[in-house]
């Protein structure tokens, strides 16, 4: 086993804030090393430091040995020559990493054209070979497609093809599958593994979820607060996990049975019939006929009082558009929304005020959800506007305190800036903002996807508590079926803008009817099994 990259005592500070505090890590050829840690633990920064992609205010100490050279001592020009050719990187969000105006074959060919003297035809030929290797053979899928014509998983395959184009010795993949649904995630990871073994590449796989890499990693390094606390073969880590260690690094895979409200209390708080949302497809203007793309197609659903309906689907399936349309943030092409049995005219302000009074929404990104110039109190009290009456300062404060306490925060947090809080705490603040007017339904749009496992589990159990204590219904949207299983009593599966299957959670898991659902369920259960194996040390 040859060590390709040897990181020794890497320290990094940005603006005098310590980010990495002595990271030592070795990557071996043909092996997959998983770097696992909670968000903010420094795992991405380790990769950026290795690539030399750090902001100017960063100070780096330590040694990074690669091919008998110390990367820490290289100047930017030498580093540039290595980047892409010898060390390459795969990012989390495949859409932003691709040029939307170029076909995929040209984007891959470009990698060859910039680094090797080839003719355009040769480069395209090589691009086709690569596409074939990543499972997108030009004969089955046209290489002349544009990124937006691909699914999330296909885009990530293109990114992988580009990363492997120049036969690098090291590939660093930063949460490469976090944006994908479980079945795609599985395929991508297996593809990565087989390619790395074939090309004898040292792969560093960065993730916050131990379960995701349980199957494919050879070595696991656990990072905490900028320090590697352990790097060991997977079996050793598995042994520790079976003894109860690192539970915070594992996803919410435990299915807690969710109670369905008794039949007598059932009344729909929200009912949606035949809802569609459209976007203009091409640049529409004077000379173009307007073509529309239906992001949501004839969706009908109902959420009953006190229940949690989960909506699962991969990115691009239209579930976020649906969520936004439900609270008037997207215009409707067709369809009807009913709140408490009364129809809502989305074009009438008074109707929308009534809707917002009953439905509030929590968004995915805990960092862009708050005005950075407002205090927590200002943020949380914003929906009080909907009550239509001016409250006294004392009454506002009381409601803010009440909302903060109901999500497990304290009254004194109200005066702080949102910057002072972690991602998990921020999602609690967002929940407090939604709860402050006692809505009957809260929509959670991928509200836990940006959180690490420990924070996610705490938010999920908070959600279950709120359902019981406040009687609030939830519409929980996620790409992760395993997470939904832990909160929802009913699940709707969404694909290409349509709901293809709806049913009670256990029914979906025991008797999935649709092929796609079957794939999702199988992947979720394989993950659970991998985790169980890890726990029982049976790897």
């Amino acid at each position, binding site marked *: 086993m040859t060590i390709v990259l040897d990181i020794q005592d890497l320290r990094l500070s*940005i*603006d005098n804030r310590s*980010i990495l505090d002595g990271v030592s890590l070795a990557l071996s050829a043909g092996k997959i090393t998983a770097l696992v840690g909670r968000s*903010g633990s420094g795992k991405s920064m380790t990769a950026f430091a290795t690539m030399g992609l750090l*902001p100017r205010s960063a100070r780096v100490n330590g040694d990074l040995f690669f091919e008998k050279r110390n990367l820490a001592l290289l100047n930017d020009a030498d580093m540039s020559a290595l980047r892409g050719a010898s060390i390459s990187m795969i990012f989390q969000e495949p859409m932003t990493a691709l040029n939307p105006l170029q076909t995929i074959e040209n984007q891959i060919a470009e990698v060859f054209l910039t680094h090797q003297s080839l003719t355009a035809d040769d480069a395209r030929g090589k691009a086709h070979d690569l596409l074939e290797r990543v499972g997108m053979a030009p004969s089955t899928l046209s290489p002349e497609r544009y990124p937006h014509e691909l699914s999330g998983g296909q885009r990530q395959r293109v990114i992988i093809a580009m990363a492997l184009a120049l036969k690098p010795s090291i590939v660093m993949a930063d949460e490469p599958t976090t944006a994908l649904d479980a079945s795609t995630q599985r395929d991508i990871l297996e593809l990565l593994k087989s390619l790395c073994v074939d090309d004898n590449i040292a792969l560093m796989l960065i993730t916050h979820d131990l379960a995701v890499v349980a199957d494919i990693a050879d070595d696991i390094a656990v990072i905490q607060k900028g320090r590697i606390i352990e790097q060991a073969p997977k079996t050793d880590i598995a042994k520790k996990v079976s003894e109860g260690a690192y539970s915070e690094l594992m996803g919410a895979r435990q299915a807690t049975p969710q109670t369905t409200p008794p039949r007598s209390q059932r009344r729909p708080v929200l009912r949606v019939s035949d809802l569609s949302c459209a976007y203009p497809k091409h640049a529409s203007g004077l000379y173009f006929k307007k073509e529309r793309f239906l992001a949501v197609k004839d969706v009908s659903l109902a959420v009953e009082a006190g229940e949690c309906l989960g909506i699962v689907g991969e990115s691009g399936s239209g579930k976020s558009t649906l969520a*936004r349309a439900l*609270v*008037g*943030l997207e215009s409707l092409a067709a369809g009807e929304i009913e709140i408490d049995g009364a129809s809502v005219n989305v074009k009438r302000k008074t109707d*929308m*005020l009534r809707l*917002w*009074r009953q*439905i*509030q*929404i929590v*968004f*995915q*990104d805990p960092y*862009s*959800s*708050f*005005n*950075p*110039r*407002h205090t927590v109190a200002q*943020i949380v009290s*914003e*929906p009080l*506007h*909907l009550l239509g009456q001016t409250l006294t300062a004392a009454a506002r404060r009381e409601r803010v305190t009440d909302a903060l306490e109901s999500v497990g925060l304290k009254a004194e947090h109200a005066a702080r800036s949102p*910057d002072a809080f972690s991602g998990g705490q921020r999602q609690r603040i*967002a929940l407090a*903002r939604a709860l402050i007017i006692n809505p009957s339904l809260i929509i959670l749009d991928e509200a836990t996807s940006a959180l690490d496992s420990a924070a996610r589990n705490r938010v999920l159990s908070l959600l279950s508590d709120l359902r019981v204590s406040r009687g609030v219904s939830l519409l929980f949207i996620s790409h992760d079926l395993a997470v939904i299983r832990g909160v929802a009593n009913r699940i709707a599966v969404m694909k290409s803008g349509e709901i293809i299957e709806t049913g009670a959670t256990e029914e979906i898991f025991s008797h999935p009817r649709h092929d796609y659902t079957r794939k999702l369920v199988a992947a979720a259960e394989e993950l659970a099994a991998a985790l169980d194996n890890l726990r029982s040390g049976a790897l």
Partner: protein
Amino acid sequence: MSRPVRTATYAGAGVTGLFLAAALISFFWTPHDIGALNIGERLQPPSPAYWLGTDPLGRDVLSILMAGARVSIAVAFFALGIGMGIGVPLGLAAGAYTGPTDEAVMRFSDLVFAFPALILAIIIAAVFGAGAYTVVIAVGVFNIPVFARLTRGASLPLWKTGFVLAARSAGKSRARIAVEHILPNIAAVLVVQGTIQFSLAILAEAGLSYVGLGVQPPNASWGRMLAESQTLAAAAPWLAVFPGLAIFLFVFGLNLLGESVRRRFDLGSQRALL
């Protein structure tokens, strides 16, 4: 704040403050009376009695420069006021209400942009006569589309952020969100553009006064001083050098100040990472 940044801030604040102080002091005191002609002392080079020399009418250049600062700064200030006062609300509206409002604001901006400030000043001068007000209106109108476009451009991405979506689902009107959430978050950009436009307005005033459309004698302004020095530039270079230097230094100081204000305001650059 790093050391060079702090130095730049102090230098910018110092230079700007010096000119503002000189302009204010000139209201009740100048080294010499600028109204009084003293032909015997005409075209004196700089000396202990006349620090920056005298003009062809024997008036003290330093005194005129101080009084001129008053006019130049006031003109720039009001021109900026018109530009921001009208341009920023227009830009906010264009960002908030897509569709016809946006189109109307943007096409209006194109129209004004297509119309050079100089031509506008000539037209206004032809109608109302040349003077400080002509310059204020011409430069002010020219500033409206600058701020309208900048405000619209900076606000559009904010309309897609979570906190704006949350405010909308809290039932707040677009107008209220624009004031409460959008404006404070683009203030930094506006302040920087404000300092740039302020310096440009100083230059525009100088230019328009130079071609005779601006401030009329006996009122002084930096641009007028330059215009009057033209024929005497070889014989009495101090007449051209000091107003030119004043314009240069004041604009430079403003730009330094604008940059450091931006750094202070800008939350974005501090949290770009992590």
